[in-house]
C-alpha cells in the first residue's frame, strides 16, 4: 500500500487500513499536531520534528549531501515554521506539506548563498572590471528559483496544488485530473494560466535581480 503510506507521511491523512498501529493510537494525529502548532504549543514543535524531521532532512540531504548545509536547511525550516506559524492556516493545507514548502525555500536560499560566494571568490581572484559581465553574473536559474517559489506562495488553490503536482510530483495533466477529480479542461487552463503568471513574474522582476 505504497500510495497510502505516502499519503499518511506527507499529507497527514489518518486513514486506517485495518493494520492498526500502536503509535497512532497513543500519539496525537497530524491534524491535532497542526492545530497545536498553530496555537503555539511548544510540544507540537517537538512532535512535528519527530514526525517529519526525517523527511525534511532527507530533502536537504538529497540537495546538498549530509553536512552543514543540509543541517542548516532542516534547522531553518523548523525555525521559520515556528516563528511564522501565524502564517499557517487551514487553507495552507496539511502541516507536513506546508513544511515541505518552507524547506524548498531554504534549499533555494542555500543555492543562492553558494552562488553569491562563488561570485565573491571569483571577484577576488579576477580583475572583474577587465571582464565585464562574466564572473559577476548571477546564476539566472538560482535567482529564478527564489523568485518563483515566492510567487507560488501567492497562488491560491486549486491552482497552486495543480502546478505543484506537475512540478514536484511530475504528474501529467491527465494524472492530475485523475488524482484531484478536477475536470481535464480545467486542469489544462489552470496550468496555462499559472505558467503564464510565472513567466510574467520572471519577465518583470527576474531581470531586476541582475546586478
Amino acid at each position, binding site marked *: 500500500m505504497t500510495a497510502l503510506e505516502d499519503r499518511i507521511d506527507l499529507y497527514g491523512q489518518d486513514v486506517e487500513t485495518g493494520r492498526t498501529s500502536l503509535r497512532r493510537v497513543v500519539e496525537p494525529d497530524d491534524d491535532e499536531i497542526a492545530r497545536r502548532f498553530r496555537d503555539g504549543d511548544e510540544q507540537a514543535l517537538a512532535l512535528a520534528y519527530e514526525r517529519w524531521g526525517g523527511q525534511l532532512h532527507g530533502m536537504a540531504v538529497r540537495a546538498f549531501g549530509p553536512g552543514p548545509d543540509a543541517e542548516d536547511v532542516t534547522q531553518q525550516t523548523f525555525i521559520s515554521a515556528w516563528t511564522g506559524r501565524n502564517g499557517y492556516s487551514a487553507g495552507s493545507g496539511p502541516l507536513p506539506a506546508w513544511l515541505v514548502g518552507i524547506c524548498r525555500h531554504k534549499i533555494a536560499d542555500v543555492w543562492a548563498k553558494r552562488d553569491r560566494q562563488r561570485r565573491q571568490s571569483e571577484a577576488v581572484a579576477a580583475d572583474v572590471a577587465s571582464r565585464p559581465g562574466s564572473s559577476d553574473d548571477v546564476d539566472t536559474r538560482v535567482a*529564478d528559483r527564489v523568485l518563483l517559489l515566492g510567487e507560488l506562495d501567492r497562488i491560491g488553490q486549486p491552482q497552486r496544488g495543480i502546478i505543484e503536482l506537475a512540478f514536484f510530483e511530475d504528474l501529467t495533466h491527465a494524472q492530475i485530473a485523475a488524482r484531484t477529480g478536477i475536470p481535464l479542461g480545467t486542469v489544462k487552463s489552470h496550468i496555462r494560466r499559472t505558467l503564464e503568471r510565472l513567466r510574467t513574474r520572471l519577465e518583470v522582476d527576474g531581470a531586476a535581480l541582475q546586478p
Partner: protein
Amino acid sequence: MQHCSPEQLALAALREPLPAADAAHLADCAACRGEVAALQRAVDALAVPALAAPAPSVTPPPRVWDAIAAATGVSATPAPAPTSEPEPAPAPVVELRPRRTRWLAAAAAAAVVGGLAGAAVLTRDDAGAVVAATTLDPLDADESSGTAEVRERDGVRSLQVDLDAPSLGEGYYEVWLLRPDVSGLVPLGVVHQGANSVPLPDGLDLGDYPVVDVSVEPLDGDPAHSGVSVARGSLS
C-alpha cells in the same frame, strides 16, 4: 495550420507529448516554439529532482534539534530517534524526467487482467442480465479484491460490486469508472465489504469508461478521487 492553443503550448512547456498535428506544427513554427521556451524557464527552474517530494527519510543528527531549540527557546524535546530501523522503507526519489506513468501503467495492467477475466459467462437471474464483468485485482500489495458485473434489467443498468477488503478504521471505499488512460473518471458511490449494487448513469458509454476502480477515501468532505486505489479491473 493555425498555431497551437495556449493550453497545448503550456503542456509542451511541461514536456508532455502533444497530439501529432500540434507536435508537427510546433516543430515548424518559430513563434510557437518561442512561446514554449518562454513558459519553460519557470519549469526548468522548479521541476528539478532536488525540489521534488518526497525524499528518502534521513534522521538528522541531534545537534539539529539543539539548534532549533536554542533559536526558538522551546524547551520541549522530541523523542530520541529510533536506533533500529522501524521506519517504513523510504519513499523513492522522484525522477523528474522522463515523466512517470504509474497511473497509466496501472490502468493498462488492469486492462490486460480484465481482458482475461472477461471470458466470464453471461448469466441472467433476478438481478438482470450480466452485460459486462471483470475481476477486481489488488494494486501493489493491497489485500483488496473482488468482482464487478454490469447488469441490465428493464433497460436500467447497475454495477454489482462484490468487494473483499479489510475494514477501515476511518474513511470508506468508493467505486469509480475510469477511462483506460485515466483522462476521465466517473464516481459511482460508496461501497462496503461484501455485495453492493450502484446504479450507472444513463447514457454512460462503458466502452469509454471500462476500468472499474475501488479507492480509499478519507472522510474529509472532498469529493475528488483520493489517488489511493486498492483494486481495479477492466470490464469486457
